[in-house]
């Protein structure tokens, strides 16, 4: 079955089995390894990507279901010229990652949270915790992930203010 989709603005088209999961399409066919997987039961959130701007567990989605949609993976966060997205900068500034395995999923979720929140610099700790509660991290204890997301929101507000 031919499955085409747009990932990070680029179109991919491959003949795959209907049962192929989106996470494997991304990793094996689009050859983007930044999206990882960590469980069998859709609990860990390691595989989270954005579909039309909203977080999605790519291990619980068939590649075929993504046809006609816009997928954003971690590789799509930075600009074409390599300038990092503030969410990426935030994770670096605030030590929001250690082993890095859950980081792509956490960053795209953080990106979504900031984008949809009416007032990102006023996000409460609870709101951030809840937004990332679909993902598990074993390394950071979440403190610094929260700080990283806050940093990104503050950076963007500042950058907007300075323009």
């Amino acid at each position, binding site marked *: 079955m031919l499955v085409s989709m747009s990932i990070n603005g680029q179109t991919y088209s491959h003949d795959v089995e209907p*049962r*192929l999961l989106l996470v494997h399409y991304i*990793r094996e066919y689009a050859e*983007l*390894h*930044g999206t*990882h*997987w*960590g*469980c*069998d*039961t859709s*609990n*860990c959130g*390691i595989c989270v990507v954005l579909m039309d701007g909203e977080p999605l567990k790519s291990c619980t989605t068939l590649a075929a279901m993504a046809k006609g949609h816009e997928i954003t993976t971690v*590789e799509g966060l930075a600009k074409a010229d*390599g*300038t*990092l997205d503030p969410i*990426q*900068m935030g*994770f*670096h*500034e*605030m*030590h929001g*990652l*250690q*082993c*890095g*395995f*859950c*980081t*792509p999923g956490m*960053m795209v979720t953080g990106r979504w949270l900031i984008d949809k929140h009416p007032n990102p610099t006023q996000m409460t*700790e609870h709101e*951030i*915790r*809840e937004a*990332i*509660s679909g*993902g*598990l*991290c*074993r*390394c*950071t*204890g*979440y*403190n*610094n*992930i*929260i*700080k990283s997301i806050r*940093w990104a929101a*503050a*950076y963007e507000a*500042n*950058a907007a203010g*300075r323009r």
Partner: protein
Amino acid sequence: MATTETAPGKHPDWVAHATGGAFGQVTDAPVGHGHMKRKEDARFIRGLGNYCDDVRLPGMVHGALLRSPYAHAKIVSIDTSAALAHPKVAAVVIAKDLETLGLAWMPTISYDTQAVLAGDKVRFHLQEVAFVIALDAYSAQDALQLIDVEYEVLPAIVNCRKALDPDAPLIRDDKVGQTDNLASPEWEAGDRMQCDRVFAEADTVAVRDLLYPRCHPSPMETCGMVADMNPATGQLNIYNGNQAPHAHRTVYAQVAGLPEQNIRILCNDIGGGFGNKVPVYPGYVCAIAGSIVAGAPVKWIEDRSENLVTTGFARDYLMHAEMCSKGGRISGLRVNVIADHGAFDSTAQPTKFPAGFFHIVTGSYDLDGAHCTVKAVYTNKAPGGVAYRCSFRITEAIYCVERMVDALAMEMNVDPIELRMKSFIRPEQFPYETQTGWVYDSGDYHKTMKLAMEMADYEGLRREQQEKLANGEIMGIGVTFFTEGVGAGPRRHMDILGLAMNDGAELRVHPSGKAVVSLSAQTQGQGHETTFAQIVAEELGISPNDIMVRHGDTDKTPYGLGTYGSRSTPVSGGATAVVARKVRDKARAFAAVMLETRPEDLAWEKGRWYVKGDPERGASIESIAEYAYGPNPLPEGLEGGLDANAVYDPPNLTYPYGAYISVVDIDPGTGKVHMRRFIAVDDCGVRINPMIVEGQIHGGLAEGVGIALMELISFDEQGNCLNSSFMDYLLPTALECPWFELGETVTPCPHHPIGAKGVGESACNGAPPCITNAVIDGLHKAKGIKHMDMPCNPARVWAAMNGNAQPPQ
């Protein structure tokens, strides 16, 4: 003491920030110790990490393991014909096939043997039975369904107390001379008679039966390997997230009869270890055997249920403990332990310490007598036991002693901190030899405890607790003061499989004055690419941005015993400081020639040697490097170039410690525990990079929340594992973790080159007893309950509240 937050918008160079550490360059890098962002972030934040499942090799095929649905059963027959007929299947391997290669059984780290593929019978639920190799992973999973195995089910032993019953079925009938389920003979430490005398004279005795339940380190990346044997060259390249790659290489050479010089293990990036990636697993041996036989690279990556059910679990220690007091202070402790090792003894322990370092169970206290025994048994469960940030059974020991101190305080009707303060080893007593033979080098326990009390407002909390109690609300306050022993270890005492627990470091300064340091230690997220560069920077004055840290490739790094037991800073960190000082000394000799003076006339300030009394006359490390590689006269006895090797033999373990206080609120109607606060004051000696240290503590504390409140590997009576996925093996999300409040005291380690102690496992040691003590404190104040075992999930807390506390299955 929170990490300093950079104020956005105020930094002068946002472009530099935008590079996020690319090309090994991090802004604001201190030349030496201090807060420094991580160099390794550059690839991870771009999704360019290189984990095991990212490895792609031409011609690579995929392996999958068929596993037993029974915990204990004879294998009557295995029919692989349907699987072999699958168009995408290349091979199906069973025990018989491995026997011809001598690989059906493999040695374990504990001098036992473990089946790679079960031949005669299966001995634990999901034990490995057959290995399928197929063209893709989906087909490999499909093919598993086509293998037909006939089993004859046997009764299973799941309860370690019953393992030594006379009528218990014999699990290890493969071992000649094995007539029962004893995995290793009883081991003891301390002076039993002295201890008995102390108890005989005690004022108060507390007795508890404590279970540290089976749990699992569960890193986010499961275990796996790509094995690539090149038949033309005989070179075996292994891509494997591995916490002890050099030791594994030696084991594979012995087990598979392969020349060790032709085996290379490349760890690349590892998505978390926590002890889960220390053992050699059957899947690894199958992948290697598969690659040898197929002449193609074989990738085997386990799924999450395989990880939870069959890879190295943690804990499962049943401890009968008694603690006594005399004159208001703790005087004695005795503990008898049954350790459940599963069906094969594969605990990773130094040879002379089959119970690991459990005998550090005397903890932070100046006792008059102590004695402990540990007996290990086989059960029909997966092998393991030493994992999950445990420092070789220290998690079990700390849980035991810290639960007992609270229990004793309860029996004495005194405040648990007050009892600790009266019983701590005092600063003037260091170096202090414990009743069980440890020599703690340094400490000021009272200071650390007081800081935690201040940060928590301990007295305010106790007042609040009383008010809430009057209102029918249950609030619990938990305390723990732990002392660990990490950084194994001195070669005269410690080896694993006959390999000394020393680490090496190799440092080369290039002609340009930049450097590369190669380590034995292998990071799984601890930030080694940054912190080890900082160690060298501190000694030599080269920016960490200009120091590459090489690790995780056994061809390019010095031999070492691996990264676990908080060894990185104490051992590899020691080696790195020592090798950097060797380079600095060589640099001094070169500088003396360059400056036409004697080495003893030179003084050092970070980055340069200069003439004493004439500081303008000096030579920077950069200029010395250039000189050393140039066609210049050499100092007496030295060769050209600026590099050195070191192998560090730690003189002792190091002894990080900490004071933890936690606050919980318990819903009296449902038993649900809410983690309100967690205050952690750690003393890990000198902190190379406070940001990294705090991150390690945060992570360990979160794992402690999980262990205390929700993590459990349990079994039904037939030995089926009931927690085989993340639906039932519960890990804490951001919603279960409180905002961790960290403090620090710094008591440098006197024998460590940097004065550092290591911290990776401290929080996972201290948090579970702290939180459990908090829950029991709340239940005791409200309902007079004296004990419950972890996990303190709602149903178990409610049962405890009603006087029905049971250990978990």
